[in-house]
């Protein structure tokens, strides 16, 4: 057998156009079984369009796409029978109860009524929503609704689960709970495809990811590898008194790997933050605020595109 686990999703030159507008501009990627694969990028990068193509809900405009070994153009229903989708806006029926939402969804997969019910009850346990089974969805918090949507996506026992911005709009506690449930899914061997514009989410969850911007892939790899490849180890963020930014930037650039001038501060990239700070002081600058941190995917994105992820 050829080496490596089977490829669940494969794209070559994948394109999506809406009239004149090009949302996805020729992207290539492979997603292997059992990994958590991320699409990291700001709003408008083409992530959702790519997700919809992988979920076989939107026909590609060009390129080659294979999902679960099949061609979406011919085998859409068969492919979707083994996929679970967690859309960005939940698409839950607010008037129905938590349990009913699971039941009607399971019926679309032609699962017998009893099987759907049994699975639904198990999934409510998984999502920690068992006590709210009879409650109407519009009485649930955002985090609970998201967990319900994730549970719903699992009703058919899919091998691939696609999550579009799974923790956008959730408070920190809800986010951690969702991550924890997703991590459990990964341990079960489910392949997860996640889009996000949160770098902490990408770093926490993803085995591999691609950085998307303007419909194209700017970089690909594991979070660690991307950081190592594109940015330095540490970042020094400082705020200076006005007018000295440009001068400071020039001077510091000589003693650090790189300097990025943002709207409200200066990011200095180098091996060690404290060393850079000392250099700054030596040059006579007195920053009004200082932060030393490890480099993150946000810095990778900034390096590659010149913009912030959350602009």
């Amino acid at each position, binding site marked *: 057998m050829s080496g490596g686990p089977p490829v669940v999703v494969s794209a070559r030159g994948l394109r999506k156009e809406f009239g004149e507008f090009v949302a996805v501009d020729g992207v290539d990627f492979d997603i292997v079984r059992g990994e958590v694969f991320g699409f990291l990028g700001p709003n408008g990068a083409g992530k959702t369009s790519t997700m919809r193509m992988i979920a076989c809900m939107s026909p590609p405009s060009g390129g080659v796409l294979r999902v679960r070994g099949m061609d979406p153009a011919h085998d859409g229903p068969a492919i*979707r029978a083994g996929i679970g989708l967690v*859309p960005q806006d939940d*698409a839950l*029926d607010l008037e129905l109860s938590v349990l009913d939402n699971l039941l009607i969804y399971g019926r*679309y997969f032609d699962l*017998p009524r009893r*099987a759907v019910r049994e699975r639904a009850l198990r999934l409510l346990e998984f999502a920690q929503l068992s006590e709210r089974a009879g409650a109407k969805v519009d009485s649930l918090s955002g985090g609970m609704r998201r967990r319900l949507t994730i549970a719903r996506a699992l009703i058919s026992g899919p091998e691939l689960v696609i999550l579009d911005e799974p923790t956008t709009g959730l408070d920190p506690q809800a986010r951690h709970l969702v991550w924890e449930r997703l991590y459990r899914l990964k341990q*079960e*061997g*489910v392949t997860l495809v996640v889009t996000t514009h949160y770098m902490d989410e990408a770093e926490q969850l993803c085995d591999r990811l691609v950085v998307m911007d303007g419909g194209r892939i700017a970089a690909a790899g594991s979070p660690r590898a991307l950081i190592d490849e594109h940015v330095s180890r540490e970042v020094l963020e400082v705020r200076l008194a006005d007018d000295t930014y440009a001068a400071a930037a020039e001077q510091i650039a000589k003693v650090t790997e790189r300097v990025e001038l943002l709207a409200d501060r200066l990011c200095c990239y180098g091996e060690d933050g404290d060393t850079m700070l000392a250099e700054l002081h030596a040059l006579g600058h007195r920053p009004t605020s200082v932060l030393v941190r490890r480099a993150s995917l946000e810095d990778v994105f900034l390096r590659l595109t010149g913009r912030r992820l959350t602009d």
Partner: protein
Amino acid sequence: MVPSIFAGLPAAPERRRATPLWRRAFAYWCFQFARTWRSTLTASVVYPTLYLAALGVGLGSLVDRHLGATSGSAGLDGVTYLRYVAPGILAGSVMQIAVNESTYPVMAATKWVHTYDAMLATPLRVLDVLAGHVGFVLLRLVVTSATFCAIAAGFGALVSPEAVLAVPAAVLTGLAFAAPVMAFAVTQERDSGFSVIHRLFVVPLFLFSGSFFPISQLPGFLQAVAVVTPLYHGVALCRACTLGRLWTLASLGHAAYLVALATAGWAAARVTFRRRLAP
């Protein structure tokens, strides 16, 4: 997959034949209807009955007296006003229900509740989503038409045994409205157009398509307009059924018109649904 979550449960048994995809969407609408049937059904049956009583009987007494009609002798179109008006009310109410079911629920499923999107993430395709919804609207039309015909028969408004064919005639009328209106509704971003449709199209059609008086009473050019509108043909076809005058060339023409409109509407809906839901 997800073995430990479903551990211990029997594997989902293989069905001998999978349920057709469109039937799964249809089942969803039936499920929703089972929750809300009381209010919708009472409205769609009670209101036409009120029209039948008020205009068919109450106003009918004035018309029959003026035209010298009693049950069986000369009157409007040879029958009492009640018998004249009943198929008109049938067709008119079926139109209203068809339009109502094809506007707000479609927008809700597209934009507010995202029902269609939820369906499309499963094995269902756009065609199944559309067919499931149209199938449900048809079911509604059948139930309402049959109920109204039973009530009208109780009033003594149905003359001939062919009146039972008024049910499929009414359903065809409703479909001729539902299909094109659904094709339109799925393209909309706001529901403001719907109340305009109701007030500027549904109400005038209801009143001027021959339900309550023959269109010969309209001025000439308006008669020409009425003849090309769908409800005129629906009323004429239903009236032909209830008065036992079905087997004529004119009836064939009315039916053909409605079938053509329904078919064109279905074709348009396939295009607009795909454009909106799977662009």
